[in-house]
């Protein structure tokens, strides 16, 4: 049994799962914004990065890890809400390239400002979880207390979002205003507030994800910490469907596992190339949303 659990295949699956839940979280945060406001947020990695830096600066070395996590998430809510109110609000109803361009601009401004204030040197976030893999019969199992913490947190967040959308009044209002804004407004839903809330939630999820990534002993927090992960998260969201939270999470985890195998059995260059091929092939087979949208578009 021990030999099986420490075998190459099981190690890759476990390692891939750890990466995959992170991609799934990024994809989920992209889907939340897409569903509420129809915008693909290219600053989805940079906004939580700022929030994490804020959490780190405010109480960094006094109160320990958990206050830092809480403050970062609160800062994430704030960053998301302010961004929607100040910047994104002007982009509704514009041609679809306008929000893309503005969010790309926002991405490099945020990364530039973060690097100007906090420099590009990685900053470790000390946390109570050991990054060292457990041993089974003298061989490492590709699982450490830290990766279990990552997986459990991600699952809790995903369940939380699902519960919020399925079983609460607020979730119903959020879904209604995304689906039929005019009707929801007539029925008394504060649609404009719901749009803001979509961004708040999305940046909150993103911040939890960024804190997890930055807490990793081997990564640390840098202004560009989420750049590569954003690319994988977008691929997961696009493959799963930008409209579907479940699709995003499933695609994120599967892509994480597939890429872990590719990285292990081929080489590290093949990882992003495989991801690109997966994206292109899946978009060619099922460019989802295209046809449903074109029938609904007014001429």
């Amino acid at each position, binding site marked *: 049994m021990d030999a099986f659990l420490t075998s190459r295949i099981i190690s890759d699956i476990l390692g891939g799962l750890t990466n995959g839940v992170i991609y799934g979280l990024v994809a989920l945060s992209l889907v939340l914004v897409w569903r509420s406001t129809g915008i693909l947020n290219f600053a989805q990695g940079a906004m939580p990065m700022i929030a994490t830096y804020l959490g780190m600066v405010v109480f960094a070395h006094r109160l320990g890890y958990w206050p830092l996590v809480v403050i970062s998430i609160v800062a994430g809510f704030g960053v998301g809400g302010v961004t929607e109110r100040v910047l994104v609000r002007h982009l509704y109803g514009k041609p679809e390239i306008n929000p893309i361009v503005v969010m790309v601009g926002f991405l490099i401004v945020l990364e530039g400002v973060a690097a100007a204030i906090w420099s590009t040197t990685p900053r470790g976030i000390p946390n109570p979880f050991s990054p060292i893999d457990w041993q089974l019969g003298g061989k490492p199992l590709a699982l450490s207390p830290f990766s279990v913490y990552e997986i459990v947190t991600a699952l809790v967040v995903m369940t939380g979002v699902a519960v919020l959308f399925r079983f609460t009044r607020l979730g119903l209002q959020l879904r209604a205003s995304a689906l039929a804004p005019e009707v929801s407004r007539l029925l008394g839903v504060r649609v404009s507030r719901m749009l803001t809330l979509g961004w708040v939630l999305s940046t909150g999820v993103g911040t939890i994800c960024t804190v997890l990534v930055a807490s990793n002993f081997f990564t640390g927090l840098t202004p560009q910490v989420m750049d590569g992960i954003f690319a994988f998260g977008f691929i997961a969201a696009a493959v799963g469907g930008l409209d579907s939270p479940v699709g995003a999470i499933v695609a994120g985890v599967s892509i994480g596992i597939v890429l872990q195998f590719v990285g292990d059995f081929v080489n590290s*260059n093949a990882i992003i190339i495989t991801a690109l091929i997966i994206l292109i092939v899946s978009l060619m087979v099922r460019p989802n949303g295209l046809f449903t949208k074109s029938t609904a578009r007014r001429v």
Partner: protein
Amino acid sequence: MAWLVARGRPTTTAGLLVVAVVITSLVTSSPRDDVAVSLAFAVAIVGVSTLTVRGLRDAHPVFARAALTVVVLDAALFATYFFSSITNFNLAIGAAMSITLLGLSFLTGASGQISLGNSAFMGVGALSVAIWANHHSSTPMAVTLLIAVACGTLVGLLLGLPATRLRGPYLAGMTLAFAVAFTAIVNSFTSWTGGDAGLQLPTAVTPPHWLSSFFNAQTSLLTVNTMWLADITIVVTGVAFFFMANLFASRTGRAMRLVRDNEVAAELVGVSLPRARVIAFMVSSAYAALGGGLWTLINNSVQPPTFSLALSITILSLVVIGGIGTISGALIGGVIYAYSNNVISWFTQHTGINQQGNLASQLPGIIFGGLLILTMLFAPMGIAGAVRRLWARRRVQTGA
């Protein structure tokens, strides 16, 4: 000439000639300079007089564009004769960049698609030139550049085919993934591409003998070489802009603008959407590859890490700031790119920001990003669009 005198504006032409003779006698110091300056002025005068012919722009638009290109090229080439080699180098880099910008401008402005992968297409062109030159060093430079353009077009086709079925955000994300994957792709074929270290050209591009001997003995080789590179780049840029101006105005260009504005209407009048999209994507990547190939010639080497996502974002910023879908916007963007570093370092010097500090190193990104947001929010057609609007308003007010 007789035709010009008959249909053009003889007084203007004569006046220009007199001015030219006066300037020539003031500027030149040797008989060799005389020849160069006279030639430049002669071309400029014939070109400008052609442009003043009434009704030419309506009757023969292609001819008018050609004349305009010749005049602008003539002025630019004439200017490189006097510039320092640093200015000429910046000019060449900016001119090559403006070709790439024009490609993206066409893609976004004419067909309404957006690409964050144009740095990678530039990289394809840049590497193609270096790889071909290292394997077949005897190939003429123009042919090598055309091969680079062909490679760029081919890669554009490969990525453009799935792109035909994608709408804005999906396409932007897919091209972003391509830009991120580019370095990994290059590193997978290290024996060809040289990996991260890149490639050197086997022989530097040198001016032909007659040009070197044209200069005084005091003129350094570097000055002549840089001037020659700048001149080549400017001529290629002129040709590329001339083709694009015609494409914009052609049947294909009009069809693409219709695709951008109203897909359903476009399909109803018989425009094939996938065809229009894939052509736009291929043209855009071909132009990016040409710009990248010229960069390799100018730098005499290529470093693949240059062609990162950050460069793609810079390309997008410059297109937006210059003016999406306008020819002049791409030129404005190229000039901004060529001189932005000088302007920003001048700015840091005069505001007392620490030159080696974090803020100074991040300033270009912050400024470009900020301008990108502000332009998109307040003047979506960029500098070229804003100028055009002011011009139109003035004409309405003066009743002209």
